[in-house]
């Protein structure tokens, strides 16, 4: 559809106040991309999450955090000290006119300030209030100290990843657990919005990052214990028929299937080897249904591995990606961020968006909308707010505070 023809998002009628730190920023970003008017409230001077690197041109500066940039697009930003009574008053005033409040303070903190759900519900009975915490609002671990890696460890998936002569290892770096928490919170919020449309009532949402991270484990950790009383140990890299193969300039992923799935999924790769003249008689004639990665003897696995290695070592990741498409084989490069940036599929789908950063005098390329829709598409249109960027717009234009009052609030370090 033509640009401008439909500027309304799926959630355009709603407004949210986002008080979260690095643990919850993704929630507001998802809502903002769907059209919610998200107002990021920071403490005067700016949020801690602005001190998370990497930084624009490696300049350590709260206005140049790429972490901050990533998860605050489409939000407007104001400063407000909710620890001061006057700040609390202003906050309550704002809550009257919003649908959603998102926070990630320690359990009990907002209650101490008189800003917990029970209090805000009195101000705005329909308010939806999401709390994102490491372990949830109640329970024996609720006050546990945490860090992304400790939450990741407790989430369980880590126990199954890594080499057996090294420690279990987390997936990626940069706060995966907090993103899972934020993503779960966003789902809670849209569900609560739906509930409110039907019943008129708001509610509290209690999100546990620990549960959000644990959610990825049944696939290879929890279910194996539950049904077989087995612990899945890490052991990557030792299997002869591993899934990560060396190629000319890095690694590619390709797996062999056994059982009835074997012939269907393995044949395209064998055909590719044939076309390259590396397929052996053995691999051409091998009965894939009999392949069992645990029981098949190592010498057979080696006979499968040998021509596979030969094929992959001939080419670069980029060449293998093209070849995979041509041969319909499930071979995928282990992309670096540079290769992701150059990926032809993402380019063909116009995935990337450029956002203006006037104060830096540049526009920066961002991961774009995460869905294509025929109506009300998600959009990524505005860079993250500067500290207090929308103070005037929101406090004076929208809330009607006078210029004098605004100066007073600034003087008293409320905003």
């Amino acid at each position: 559809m033509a640009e401008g023809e439909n500027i309304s998002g799926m959630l355009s009628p709603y407004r949210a106040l986002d008080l979260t730190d690095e643990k919850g920023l993704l929630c507001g970003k998802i809502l903002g991309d769907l059209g919610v008017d998200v107002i990021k409230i920071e403490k005067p001077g700016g949020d801690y999450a602005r001190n998370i690197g990497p930084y624009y041109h490696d300049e350590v500066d709260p206005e140049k955090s790429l972490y901050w940039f990533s998860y605050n697009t489409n939000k407007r930003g104001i400063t407000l000290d909710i620890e001061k009574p006057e700040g609390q008053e202003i906050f309550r005033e704002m809550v009257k006119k919003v649908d959603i409040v998102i926070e990630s303070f320690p359990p009990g903190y907002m209650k101490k300030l008189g800003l917990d759900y029970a209090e805000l519900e009195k101000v705005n009975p329909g308010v939806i209030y999401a709390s994102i915490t490491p372990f949830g609002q109640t329970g024996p671990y609720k006050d546990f100290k945490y860090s992304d890696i400790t939450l990741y460890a407790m989430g369980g998936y880590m126990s199954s990843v890594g080499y057996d002569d090294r420690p279990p290892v987390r997936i990626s770096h940069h706060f995966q657990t907090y993103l899972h928490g934020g993503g779960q919170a966003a789902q809670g919020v849209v569900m609560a919005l739906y509930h409110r449309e039907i019943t008129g009532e708001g509610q509290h949402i209690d999100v546990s990052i620990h549960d959000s991270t644990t959610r990825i484990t049944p696939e290879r950790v929890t279910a194996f214990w539950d049904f077989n009383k087995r612990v899945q140990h890490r052991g990557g890299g030792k299997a002869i028929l591993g899934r990560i193969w060396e190629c000319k300039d890095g690694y590619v992923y390709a797996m062999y299937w056994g059982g009835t799935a074997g012939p269907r999924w393995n044949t395209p790769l064998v055909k590719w080897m044939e076309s390259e003249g590396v397929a052996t008689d053995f691999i051409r004639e091998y009965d894939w249904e009999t392949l069992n990665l645990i029981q098949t003897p190592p010498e057979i696995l080696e006979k499968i591995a040998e021509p596979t290695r030969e094929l992959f070592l001939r080419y670069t990741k980029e060449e293998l990606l093209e070849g995979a498409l041509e041969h319909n084989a499930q071979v995928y490069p282990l992309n670096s961020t540079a290769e992701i940036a150059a990926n032809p599929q993402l380019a063909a789908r116009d995935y990337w968006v450029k956002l203006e950063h006037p104060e830096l005098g540049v526009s920066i390329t961002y991961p774009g909308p995460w869905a294509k829709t025929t109506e009300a598409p998600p959009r990524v249109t505005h860079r993250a707010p500067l500290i207090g960027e929308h103070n005037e717009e929101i406090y004076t234009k929208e809330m009607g505070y006078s210029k004098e009052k605004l100066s007073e609030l600034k003087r008293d370090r409320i905003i």
Partner: protein
Amino acid sequence: MPKKLLEGVKVCDFSRVIVGPLTTKPLSDYGATVVRIEGRTNLAIFRIQAPEPDLSIQFTQWNTGKLGVTLNLHDPRGKDIALKIAAWADIVVENFAGGVIDRLGLGYEEIKKVNPDVIMLSSCMQGQTGPFSQHPGWGFQLSALSGFSHLTGWDDRPPPEIGVYTDFITPQYNVCLLIGALLYRKRTGKGMYIDTAQFETGLHFISPLILDYFVNNRVAERMGNRSYTAAPHNAFRCKDEARYCVINISDDEEWEKFCGVLENPEWTKKQKFSTQESREANKEELRKLVEQWTTPFTVENVMNKLSGVELTGERLLDFNDRQKADNAYRCKDEDRWCAIAVTTDEEWKNFCKVIGNPEWTTDPRFGTLANRKANEDELDRLVEEWTTQHLAFDVMNLMQEGGVPAGVVETGEDQLEHDLQTMHRGFFQELDHPRLGKHHAMASPFQLSKVPCEIERAPLLGEHNEYVLKEILGLSDEEVVDLVVNGALE
């Protein structure tokens, strides 16, 4: 009892494996009627990999509370029923490879003809358009494509296999889109088609590293468990824990098989082990010999070797179970780990106190974060000298009491038996499956204060054929019988 949140929302679910099913799981768990369409002649991988389709463990995890229908979509009458279900639905979800649903004649354009304001979601690997749209793949490979594999592991080694990961990212966006679309339709009366890609949603989980490339031209590399802003920051080895496998050999036939697993060492041929009685009479000696074989292997290795010849090995769960303990053989100890992260000066002081302020902690090489980072290999070694003296849960609890972030690297056992917090929140709920018996499946990581998340077990293959066709679609007995006879209803 409060009404379920999505009561009355109708979902036609063609989805397979994880992404699709995990998209519709929160919908069914919160009360939507989700009709999961499968086919006996076109089973998805989890059903195929199981000994029998209804014994798929994975299927039970992602399909709680859904209704199971089996249709042959390649049969025009089967397709016709699928279209009827799609016409009934508010939401249609599919995650075949791009283009497959269109070739089945069940694409958005077809469904829209029978259901003009339908909300339809296609969620494949790389999206419905572009040169790779129809390229088949699995979540495994998407971990590679979207950067997670490259970023995981150590810089001196190839990345370890990480399994599927984007499968757990995409559904979060999908659920927001589907409920968002329902709200939009309520306001405007308009349905929509939604196209999501695991590739594209996944990249949002490494946005800062992508921006680092675009603005600083820096390509992010593997850094193990390390952090730029904390040290110690790793998973540290704790005290190993003893593991035992219970092995029962009840007759000569089983003894023969067992000797085969042991690769028939000389001693197994001795007279004194040749009958059940003689083995019983010499059980202490036998025990030592068997244990010599089991101790180099993990209990899981031993269980695998035994199940390979249809013998059973069982992990000893309760050390007080004397009867079992009699036949329990010590296996390799299990290595246990606890993650510790020390970011601030205060946490460092707390950490030193918890480990008893050994002399090395006053060494200037470890006095500041910068120095700890510069000497991190040595630091990790010293930390492990302490952690290996303690059980993993003790390390976590001692650190927590002393004000240091720490968390056990939980195994499946820990998650279901030892994690007091997930238990407190009831995250894993117990269900009863007619074929697999009592088991657990996860509830919601977000809890809503006014509506419950009640999960029910996953359906058997075709379990709700009759209910869906008669009660939902209003077909007569004869029509249903016809569909069975001609194979459209599998």
